[in-house]
């Protein structure tokens, strides 16, 4: 027993120090042979599309793809262990430019792709939207290729609005009034639902923050989470959930839980990333598939300012001895054709040409395509604090969100979050 206790930590420590992962990986030397490319991807609609197309790539390139697919948390743990150990067991990795991007680049985990992206005019790096490219660039070097972009939109139930005689809300006041009306008329249906977890809610709250005229930091890089605008945004977001949200609301909800409440028909309004829309409109996953409508984020005092970000990208592991083949895979997976196919399957992409091609939005509900176009126009390029240790920063700035949801004083919580966040920012500068 004692041995087991020690063993657990030992394994972690060993993994972090020695590259002996708790249960050692494939350990094969395939990577040294040039015929294999090892790809680690996250569970996502995009991944499903790529998975079914991989045989095509294997045939045309003569390479064999070894695919590892993981959930978000397991994925970042895996990267933490393997990249820390300088393992060459990963060639291509799917990563979150805004979550791990800065840290990975700082630690030198990402290979420099600057020359590779500009070497093929047919693949056309210039076709990529500016915002996503900025997010996958570090110190002037391109270190990743964006694959998925997302914006926050308003999901709503057409049938409930119609029954209540309500218009689609265009401002935050209207949203609140509509949520209130629905909650009062149908007590077992929530007026509004959204993410509630301290860390997970931060990204979805960010659009509210910008629309109220705030941001996580000010122009000089100092914490701004206690500005009047931020305090109003915290109080508004938390208040919507507290007053018009589901009964007994949990403060641990990420998108799967919040989405489940919406798709079970238990909420009228829901703000979430557009890239997840399939979960709401697919009859296999949603009880309300045929009555879901989409609209741009309602406007706050500063207008409608949703985030517009590249949520995922592909990068090459710097320690991989197989970088050329890794690039071949990325080049294929992000080609114009593949991007169009993915976008038609419901994954908004980062290529301008695909967006301007009518086929690119042909499969989208019309109101969603319109909402995306509007949001792309006035969107903000980040949805979380732009720092190295994003995980910790999110927990700090998310504190007032849960305080507000549970009915505590959002303003006091914002003040203490501000102090903690400033301290954190100072520690990162050292």
């Amino acid at each position, binding site marked *: 027993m004692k041995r087991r*206790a020690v063993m657990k930590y030992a394994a972690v420590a060993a993994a972090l120090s020695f590259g002996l992962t708790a249960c050692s990986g494939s350990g094969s030397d395939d990577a040294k042979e040039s015929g294999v490319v090892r790809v680690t991807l996250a569970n996502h609609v995009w991944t499903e599309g790529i998975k079914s197309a991989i045989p095509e790539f294997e045939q045309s390139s003569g390479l064999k793809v070894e695919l590892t697919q993981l959930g978000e948390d397991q994925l970042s*743990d895996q990267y933490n262990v393997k990249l820390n150990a300088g393992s060459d067991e990963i060639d291509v990795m799917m990563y979150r430019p805004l979550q791990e991007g800065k840290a990975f680049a700082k630690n030198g985990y990402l290979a420099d792709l600057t020359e590779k992206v500009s070497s093929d005019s047919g693949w056309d790096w210039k076709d990529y939207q500016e915002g996503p490219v900025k997010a996958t660039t570090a110190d002037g070097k391109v270190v990743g290729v964006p694959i998925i972009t997302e914006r926050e939109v308003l999901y709503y139930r057409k049938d409930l609005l119609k029954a209540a005689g309500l218009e689609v809300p265009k401002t935050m006041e209207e949203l609140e009034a509509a949520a209130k009306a629905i909650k009062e008329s149908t007590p077992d249906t929530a007026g509004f639902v959204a993410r509630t977890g301290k860390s997970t809610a931060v990204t979805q709250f960010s659009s509210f923050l910008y629309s109220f005229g705030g941001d996580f930091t000010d122009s000089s890089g100092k914490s701004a989470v206690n500005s009047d605008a931020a305090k109003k945004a915290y109080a508004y977001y938390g208040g919507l959930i507290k007053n018009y949200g589901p*009964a007994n609301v*949990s403060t641990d909800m990420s998108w799967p839980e919040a989405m489940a409440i919406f798709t079970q028909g238990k909420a009228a309004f829901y703000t979430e990333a557009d890239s997840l829309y399939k979960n709401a409109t697919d009859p296999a996953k949603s009880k309300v598939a045929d009555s879901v409508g989409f609209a741009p984020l309602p406007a706050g005092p500063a207008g409608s300012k949703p985030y517009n970000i590249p949520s995922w990208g592909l990068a090459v592991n710097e320690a991989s001895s197989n970088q050329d083949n890794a690039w071949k895979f990325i080049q294929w997976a992000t080609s114009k054709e593949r991007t169009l196919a993915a976008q038609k399957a419901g994954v908004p992409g980062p290529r301008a040409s695909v967006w301007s091609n009518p086929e690119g939005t042909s499969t989208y509900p019309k109101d969603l395509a319109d909402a995306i176009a509007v949001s792309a126009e006035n969107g903000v390029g980040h949805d979380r604090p732009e720092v190295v240790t994003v995980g*910790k920063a999110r927990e700090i700035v998310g504190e007032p969100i849960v305080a507000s949801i549970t009915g505590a004083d959002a303003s006091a919580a914002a003040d203490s979050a501000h102090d903690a966040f400033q301290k954190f920012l100072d520690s990162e500068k050292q």
Partner: protein
Amino acid sequence: MSVTNAPRSAPARSAGRPPSFAGNVSAWSNRHRKWLFAAPAMIFVGILIVFPLVWTLYLSLTDSQGSVRAATEFIGFQNYLAVLTDTERFWPAVGRTLTFTGVALVCEVVLGMGIALLLWRPFRGEKWVRVAILLPLVATPVAVGMMWRLIFDPNIGFANQLLGMVGIPPQPWLSGQDTALGTTIFMDVWQWTPMVVLILLAGLTSLSDEPDEAARVDGANAFQRFFYITLPLMMPTVIVAILLRGIDALKTFDILYATKGKGGGSFNEVETLNVYAYGLSFDYNQYGLSSAVLILFFMIIIGSMWLLTMRKKAVSK
């Protein structure tokens, strides 16, 4: 592991001839055989336990963060100072760890003893009952966590529907700040009581019947027989059960992580030491601090084990 030292007999040599190389090797291995046989296990232990432990100790004395391969500075006991003066996360986590372990242990031992006593005497259908009782034990903790998470969902969960049938208002369970830790303790009890039952049942069946029968003849009732005869005789077994289960409960991670995720929930409701150390490493990438927490945690485990072993020795006498 004890190896009796066999008398060393010098290998037989034919007179006058120098020993061959093979003869030398076999003579050497004969002389050191107890080490030789233990070597594979010792090397294994060395690589998998001692080295990482020493490495963790080293990391805890540096400012390692971001990447383990980044340059680090030796900062002495600063991490320990930071951790031990951290009243926001560390001490509450210690409190939660001890609460979780203490409450779960008491429930498991009391329940386990009760069930073991019920199963002690043969009865019809005991095989089936035993299988049913052992079922939670074979389930994967993460899957158990997921299952209970669904059952305890405040809005669509079965638990609240059940309460609704008997007119009790819905409870927040895992999502309540005050109820989350209690709910995870309940899950732990549900899953691990069977293990305690197994250990205690083994102890009960090995007891001799004479003292019990003698007491019966003397007119002692069931309670008296249990508290004055069975329980004292069972004490060493009970302590073994507490020891095994206690160490496991102290370092519970899977159930907590599967139900509340990183940081033990938005208010760190179920953040025990283990969950905290994990978050420090994998979420904040502060390897130095995390290692310091782990070393302190390791000491807590070793300390509580030592106390219990002492207790066991006293009881066994």
